[in-house]
């Protein structure tokens, strides 16, 4: 591997950030002018949203289960085992639901976008699309971006719901709690600010998943090896960004709503 001077390295990184920013802006703004590829948006919604349902349901459900199970030990020490529903609901809605959904969809779809677009790039299909008079950003990136934003929002709600249900199953069957009191505690624990916080995060995560996945796909170089590299980078970068942005959004929301 050739040695790259620190100056060139810095320039490459700045150029990559610039290209990513331009791609993101073009993808966002393309929806406001014609042509719009609605059929592609619906296809992506099906692929990203409906296709991710099984993993989201399984992840959300078992996260809720394990959350109830693990918290029971600590809560029992304080004689507050009846607060299990409270803890599960708050944890799922504010934090685990949005983050885990983001990470799971990132692993599935950011990788999918990077590999699909990367394969198209290395086989000159992106150039062919341009040669045929179609803007590849408008045709390929914009539908993925808006489909991810729209569907991740609802996937997070599903994850929250099945997570609370999973917590209920464990609380009732293993911890001997009353189902009614569990759901009552869950319902009472949640406030408007918690729900807003939990549903704001997937909007940011979805933006990160789609733009990072598409950016690495569109900038793929070096044949099939390059496609593999882009796929890995897309998952790594989008996952890390989701967690960083999750912290920043949490802090901002706490600043705004006070909780």
């Amino acid at each position: 591997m050739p040695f790259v001077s620190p100056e060139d390295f810095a320039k490459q990184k700045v150029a990559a950030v610039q290209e990513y920013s331009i791609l993101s802006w073009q993808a966002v703004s393309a929806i406001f002018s014609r042509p719009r590829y609605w059929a592609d948006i619906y296809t992506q919604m099906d692929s990203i949203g409906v296709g991710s349902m099984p993993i989201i349901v399984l992840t959300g459900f078992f996260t809720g289960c394990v959350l109830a199970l693990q918290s029971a030990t600590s809560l029992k020490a304080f004689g507050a085992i009846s607060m299990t529903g409270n803890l599960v609901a708050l944890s799922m809605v504010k934090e685990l639901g949005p983050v885990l959904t983001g990470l799971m969809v990132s692993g599935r779809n950011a990788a999918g976008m990077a590999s699909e677009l990367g394969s198209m790039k290395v086989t000159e299909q992106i150039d062919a699309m341009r040669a045929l008079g179609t803007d590849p950003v408008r045709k390929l990136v914009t539908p993925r971006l808006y489909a991810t934003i729209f569907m991740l929002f609802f996937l997070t709600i599903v994850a929250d719901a099945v997570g609370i249900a999973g917590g209920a199953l464990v609380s009732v069957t293993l911890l001997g709690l009353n189902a009614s009191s569990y759901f009552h505690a869950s319902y009472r624990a949640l406030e408007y600010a918690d729900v807003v916080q939990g549903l704001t995060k997937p909007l940011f995560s979805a933006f990160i998943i789609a733009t990072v996945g598409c950016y690495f796909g569109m900038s793929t170089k070096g044949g099939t090896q390059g496609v593999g590299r882009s796929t890995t980078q897309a998952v790594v970068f989008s996952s890390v960004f989701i967690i960083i942005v999750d912290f920043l959004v949490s802090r901002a929301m706490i600043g705004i709503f006070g909780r």
Partner: protein
Amino acid sequence: MAEQLVHEGLQSAAPGEQGSVVVFEDVSIAFDLKTVLDDISFSVDHGETRIILGPAGGGKSVLMKLANGLLRPDSGKIRVFGQEVSSMPERDLFKLRARIGMVFQESALFDSLSVEDNVAYRLHEEHVPEEEAHKRVVEALKFVELEQAIDKFPPELSGGMRRRVSIARAIISRPDLILYDSPTGGLDPITSTTIVELVMKQRDVSHTTSLMITHRLQDAFTLAMNRFNPQTGKMEPIPNGGVDESTKFLVLNEGKIVFDGTTHELVHSTDPWLRQYLS
């Protein structure tokens, strides 16, 4: 739209160049500090077929992508239909490309679309009614003698069939300029001849201006010394050892033009490198 583009193109073309469809003026481009094309200047006239020859890595494909605005030169100007593509915004380039068909080196068919959808891609983008689009797809596939493959998907096709579908996709919108990037590359001699025959048919039947890259000298000379006979539907040698006047050559080596001229001038060139290359 097309008439308006032609009109605008002619207006912006420099005097004396109104017959030139493609004009390169002192074009240079480098990748990672390596010069790929160095001060290239040439022009392609209306109705001309320009064969681009040269060793691999000489910048031929880059030149083709520059002509279509898929790449931008570091310096120099490129005019296509009189419009400067080297500084044109991408949005305007999409309109200009409606008049240009391009056949890529590895076909670049969309894997997830059927042959019909691949060929009709441009028509679908232009919202041509489905019935008319289907009719034109069948027509284009008949031209490349592949109408039986209309429902197949690209991975089910052989290399030669993919190139033919790619040609059908390029010609369906009846372009005024066709760019063939190594359409015979990696194919067996018989399939290569079939592809060359299609290029010849497009040249002699539609008289479309075209640029064709090839690594095979045999293909280049077949194209220059034969003509398509619409009666027999096959190519035949031009009588008395004649050559097609509209077919010219451009030879590139290490990013520079080594030769720019007619078939006759090429075979009688005294340039030592060129003679060695042709031998």
